[in-house]
């Protein structure tokens, strides 16, 4: 049963990612990317990352993709635009680089596919059992990774200020 849902979400993710790259209309691209993010969120649930799955939907599908959609509609980049997909050599180059990348990954995977204990049982079962999905992530986040957490909040403030400064209309 788990395998069935895994393959379902994996197929959905790959297909909608391919559609995202090959759609001419940017709005359709954004919606296909949202489908990819939803299926990745389902995969996160299968892989014992329940909190990350919720954050994925709230932040990625909910906030970031709406921002993309908002910018596309603000700039009026609808279906009337000419196709922006490269032709000829650029298309061949893009396809061959992607295939070569998969081949390199496959080669590395074959070379040492059996990394330490990859075939063992999930290391998270007992942790999730004892403290729950949210506390399991929150506990290290606010102890061992507290400095990184605070630095991330500074980064977000800098990003907000930077975005406002960049996007502001300058007085003529």
């Amino acid at each position, binding site marked *: 049963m*788990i395998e069935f849902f*895994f393959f379902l979400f994996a197929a959905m*993710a*790959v297909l909608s*990612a*391919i559609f*995202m*790259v090959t759609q001419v209309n940017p709005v359709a*691209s*954004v919606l296909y*990317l949202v489908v*990819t*993010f939803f299926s*990745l969120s389902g*995969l*996160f649930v299968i*892989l014992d*990352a329940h*909190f*990350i799955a919720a*954050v*994925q939907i709230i932040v*990625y599908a909910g*906030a*970031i993709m709406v*921002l*993309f959609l908002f*910018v596309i509609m603000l700039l009026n*980049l609808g279906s009337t635009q000419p196709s*922006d*997909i*490269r032709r000829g050599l*650029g*298309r061949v*180059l*893009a*396809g061959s680089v*992607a295939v070569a990348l*998969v081949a390199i*990954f496959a080669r590395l995977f074959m070379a040492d596919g059996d990394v330490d204990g*990859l*075939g063992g*049982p*999930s*290391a*998270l079962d007992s942790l999730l059992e004892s403290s729950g999905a949210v506390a399991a*992530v929150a506990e*290290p986040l606010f102890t061992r*990774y507290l400095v*990184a957490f605070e630095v*991330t909040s500074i*980064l*977000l403030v*800098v*990003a907000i200020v*930077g*975005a406002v400064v*960049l*996007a502001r*209309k300058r007085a003529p």
Partner: protein
Amino acid sequence: MSEGYLVDLALVLSAVLFAIGVGGVLLRRNAIIVFMCVELMLNAVNLSFVAFSRVHGIDGQIVVFFVISVAAAEAAVGLALILAIFRHYQSVDLELFRRLRW
């Protein structure tokens, strides 16, 4: 089937999604779509972090948390840049942005 089977498959899927993202960056000229392909690559890496966290403990999920927040910051700044560039060129075609090339 064993549990590790799913981790293997997740790593394969992560590699495929990353390659699709790279191909998209090379294939498209629309800056916004190139940017979305970068987000897809970030998500592919997130998937492999989550898969590895099943083997090595919860720390992989913490990294994913930070990647998501950095991606949010990056999306805000990047889209503001695209807005500023669009005001100048009236287009988001990457072929036009060649002022820094030579």
